Structure formats: C-alpha cells, structure tokens
C-alpha cells in the first residue's frame, strides 16, 4: 500500500493548494454575489436558532476549509484515475484536470446551474440524484469516447454522457428567484471561471506531485 500513501500525499498537496487558489477567487468573484443575494431573502424563519458561521472571517474560514477538503477529495479521484492509466506530469495533469471540470462542474451545471441563495428549485434529493447520475455517466462517456478503442464502448459512452441531458434535470414547476436575473447570471459565469482555474490547478499539481513521488 506504499502507492496508496503516495496518492494521498499527492492529493493533499494538490487539493490544499488548489483549494487556497479557489478561496481567493471566490473571495473576490462569487462571495460578494452570495452576500448580495441574501439581502433579498426574508429573514429565515425557524432557522434563527440554528448555528451558522458568523459573517466575515469565520464564514470565509469555513469556505476555505470546504475548498481544501473538497480539493483533497477531488484530487484523490483524479490521481487514482491517472495512476491506473499510467499518466503523470503537469501537462498531462492539465488534460485530466479539464476532464474533472467537465465531470464535476460543467456537465452537472448544464442541467443545474450554480444557484444563488433564494432560488426556487426542485426537491433536494432529486437534484442530488441527477447530479450524481450526470457525473457518473460523464465519466463513463469520457472513458468510452477518449480512452477506449472499442467502437461499442465509444458509442455506449457517447449515449451515456448524453442520457442525463436528454432525461433532463429536475426543475420546479414554477421557478422564481429572489435575486435579480443579472446577479444570477454573473454568479454562473464567475463560478464557471473560478472552478475552471481550480480544476486546471488541481490536475497540474496532482500530475506534478505524482511524477515527483514516482507513482
């Protein structure tokens, strides 16, 4: 299991550094939009007594923690895929990072774009299920289309990748949002941009660390 330890170390390095980068981007690009959207929300009923991080540094510290940990988790998946495929180095890592962006951000966002607080949406469980189904079928799709030389697998992969979008993401019957449309659109663009940089950084750093660790 020496290799497992190396994968964890590579993922920690890539995840923490990329998580820091994402936190800086969010601090300037998306966090102000989330706070602005909350101004349109009525004071939450029933959640008054709930614990939540205080606005300001405490709230941002939790976001940084989230980014570092999710960076670690995503980097583990990315490193394991590169390890199985026998790839390393930061140039190759950039390509694998782009694939990660497609799987975990772009494809789910096609049906369920990043939302500001106060936006109506369908039942949480159905959206989570669609999100997971989309990520999984995009992995299968990319594998079939880009890595397999078997025509059957290529066709099956393409169909799987398209399936969640043909079925369609769950949406509420009447959708309405409290924040203005312009704010929401800006949030989608800024999230897409900051997550793209995050995934490129994650892939490059994971590939680089794996080569350094001789994985």
């Amino acid at each position, binding site marked *: *299991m020496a*290799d*497992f330890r190396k*994968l*964890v170390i590579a*993922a920690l390095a890539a995840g923490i550094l990329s998580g820091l980068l*994402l936190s800086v981007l*969010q601090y300037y690009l*998306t*966090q102000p939009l*989330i706070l602005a959207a909350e101004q349109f929300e009525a004071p939450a009923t029933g*959640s008054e007594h*709930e*614990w*939540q*991080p205080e606005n300001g540094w405490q*709230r941002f510290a*939790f*976001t940084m*923690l*989230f*980014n570092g*940990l*999710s960076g*670690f*988790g*995503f*980097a*583990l*998946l990315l*490193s*394991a*895929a590169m*390890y*199985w*495929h*026998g790839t390393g180095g930061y140039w190759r890592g950039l390509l694998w990072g782009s694939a990660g962006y497609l799987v975990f*951000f772009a494809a*789910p*966002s096609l049906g*369920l*774009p*990043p*939302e*500001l*607080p106060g936006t109506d*949406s369908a039942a*949480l469980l159905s*959206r*989570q299920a669609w*999100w*997971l189904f989309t990520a999984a079928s995009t992995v299968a799709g990319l*594998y079939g289309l880009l*890595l*397999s*030389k078997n025509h059957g697998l290529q066709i099956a992969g393409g169909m799987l990748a398209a399936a969640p979008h043909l079925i369609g993401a769950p949406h509420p019957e009447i959708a309405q949002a409290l924040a203005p449309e312009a704010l929401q659109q800006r949030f989608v663009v800024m*999230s897409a941009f*900051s*997550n793209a940089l995050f995934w490129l950084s994650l892939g490059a750093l994971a590939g680089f660390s794996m080569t350094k660790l001789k994985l």
Partner: protein
Amino acid sequence: MKTLAGSSVVYSAKFLPGLSAIVLGLTVILGLGFMQDANNYIHNAAHDGRHSAAFPCH
C-alpha cells in the same frame, strides 16, 4: 499491465491502491457536498462552498 484499456488493472498491483484512493475521495466529496444533518451544522458550514461548486444546496 499499465492501462485500464488493457482491462488488466483489476489483476494488477495497482488495483487496490487506486480503489482505496477512490473510496476515500468519494467519501470526502459525498460528505462535504451532499450530507444533510438534522441540525444543519454541516449544511451551514459548507453553504457557500456548495453554492460555488454547483452542488445542489437547500
């Protein structure tokens, strides 16, 4: 024995380390992005991160 395309990864020494990394990675991601706890502690702490990463929130 190097690539998945050879479909031999399952029998190779690379199978278990890779699988362990994937299981740990999925546990971290599902916990952070999808867990709904009764008191909303995890939800509220992870709130902004979930919104910005396009995880379904609320």
